[in-house]
């Protein structure tokens, strides 16, 4: 009852592993598949191996987590074997990729085999640009377009919420040919250790994830659903089945789950059975609740 076709990919349920969470090794992704995920998004993979920012790279805050991993990854040259291992689980594997320019993205997408690509346009090191790539509509459109040209699988574009107007970025992705958008990446944030005055993260600041950002993500999904013709995939702060339902009502066709896995590796199974119970009690199916908030 939870299965769906998302940009042409069959998912047994609309619950996927979010990028950057237990997604660096084939073994860890397989484990998440075994605990009920309908799809697996890998760690974001770049052109060269990268060790990321120094520790502390993640810390728990009041209502979520703050992280600045710095995109550690073994590079696409070492990653196909991990995807292949993950694929043994029988669940679709979506390769998250990042780069500093369109060329980086197309180089990776041209070399990697996966069921779809998720473009992480939140890389802060855009070649020749000061800010994140994902804040400039023209760049997002260009990168999407270039990847669409080399990829023969669906291309999703993952958006940052740290912009004045997320709709304009979503529209740029759509214009570039994206098959779906994913919202949201982490929210720019910071924490300071008051005993010493030091910023806690090695990178000084980072991105907020977890419960704290759910209402922010819901609003982004809601806005993107209104603005776009392509599907929206929701992510941000989902930790139980109610959260997943809320995202779908806001207009997400499927969702991704990240931080919640830390304390509950079984979160996928729990959410899918919770959703099934809720939907059958209400005598609704996924289609009924998809975008429901817009119709009321």
């Amino acid at each position, binding site marked *: 009852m939870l299965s769906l076709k998302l940009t042409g990919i069959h998912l047994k349920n609309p619950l996927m592993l979010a990028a950057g969470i237990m997604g*660096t*090794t084939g073994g860890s992704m397989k484990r998440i598949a075994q605990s009920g995920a309908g799809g697996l998004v890998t760690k974001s993979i770049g052109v060269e191996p990268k060790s*990321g920012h120094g520790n*502390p790279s993640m810390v728990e805050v009041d209502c979520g987590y703050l*992280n600045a991993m710095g995109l*550690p990854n*073994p590079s696409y040259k070492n990653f196909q074997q991990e995807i292949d291992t993950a694929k043994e689980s029988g669940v679709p594997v979506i390769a998250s990729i990042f780069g500093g320019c369109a060329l980086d993205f197309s180089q990776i997408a041209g070399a990697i085999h996966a069921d779809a690509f998720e473009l992480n346009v939140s890389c802060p090191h855009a070649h020749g640009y000061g800010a994140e790539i994902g804040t400039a509509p023209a760049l997002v459109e260009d990168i999407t377009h270039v990847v669409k040209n080399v990829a023969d699988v669906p291309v999703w574009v993952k958006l940052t919420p740290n912009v004045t107007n997320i709709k304009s970025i979503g529209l740029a992705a759509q214009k570039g040919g994206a098959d779906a958008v994913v919202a949201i990446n982490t929210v720019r944030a910071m924490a300071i250790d008051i005993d*010493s005055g030091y910023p806690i993260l090695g990178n000084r600041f980072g991105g907020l994830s977890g419960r704290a950002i759910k209402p922010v993500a819901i609003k982004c999904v809601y806005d993107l659903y209104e603005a776009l013709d392509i599907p929206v995939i929701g992510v941000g702060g989902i930790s139980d089945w109610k959260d997943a339902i809320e995202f779908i009502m806001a207009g997400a066709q499927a969702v991704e789950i990240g931080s919640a896995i*830390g304390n509950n590796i079984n979160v996928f199974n729990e959410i899918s059975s919770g959703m099934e119970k809720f939907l059958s009690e209400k005598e609704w199916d996924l289609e009924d609740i998809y975008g429901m908030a817009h119709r009321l």
Partner: protein
Amino acid sequence: MKPVNAEITEVVSETPTIRTFFFDRSFGSEPGQFVMAWIRGVDEIPMALSYNNAITVQKVGSATSALFELDKGDSIGIRGPLGKGFDRKPGHILLIAGGVGAAPLAPLAENAASDGIKVTTLLGARTKEELVFKKRFERAGDVIIATDDGSEGIKGYVTQLIDNTEYFSQIYCCGPEIMMKKVLDKILPSKAQFSLHRYIKCGLGICGACCMDGLRVCMDGPVFSGEALKKSEFGIYRRNECGERVKV
């Protein structure tokens, strides 16, 4: 949780390269759990709790060297206790400690002994001066020693001492991975527990940096049963900071 401030109350030199740092607070953990020790401005690194209120550190690189610069009155940030510690079994247990791997095993030895569990320890190090917590293990039971250079105990590796393991109700092991792998190959996996070292980033079971096959060393471990490790990549390869496979 955020890091809490831990002030160093005492620094004890255990060996020329290993020191124990005592703090003004306890992290009330079960033996085998660890903390993330944040040397501010430098790095945050995983360290087993060698006492409720102390870590025992081998100087190997930048963060541990920075830690060695600190003294009584200085403080660091601590997140923890993290992970799952040793599963304590009754009977007569065998501890196998290699080098600074003695850190999580010493409190286990004390804990077990004080509850009437018989403890035998195989303690190994490069040389006599590098033996860690010999006295603590001796107070808890029998100790058999091996040094690479034969300066104390048997000359050779601690793994050579392993014999008659059927005799023990459980085996607890911590040390370099190659050594632990040798132990695993010599004993009944279901009867042994190993405390692993893997590259730790988040320590929260989220980022996946520490994953060994599907297991998260920071959250599902660092202590794993031999059975869980038997058919894994344990002893074969590990992941570096980038997630690349690196031979052990």
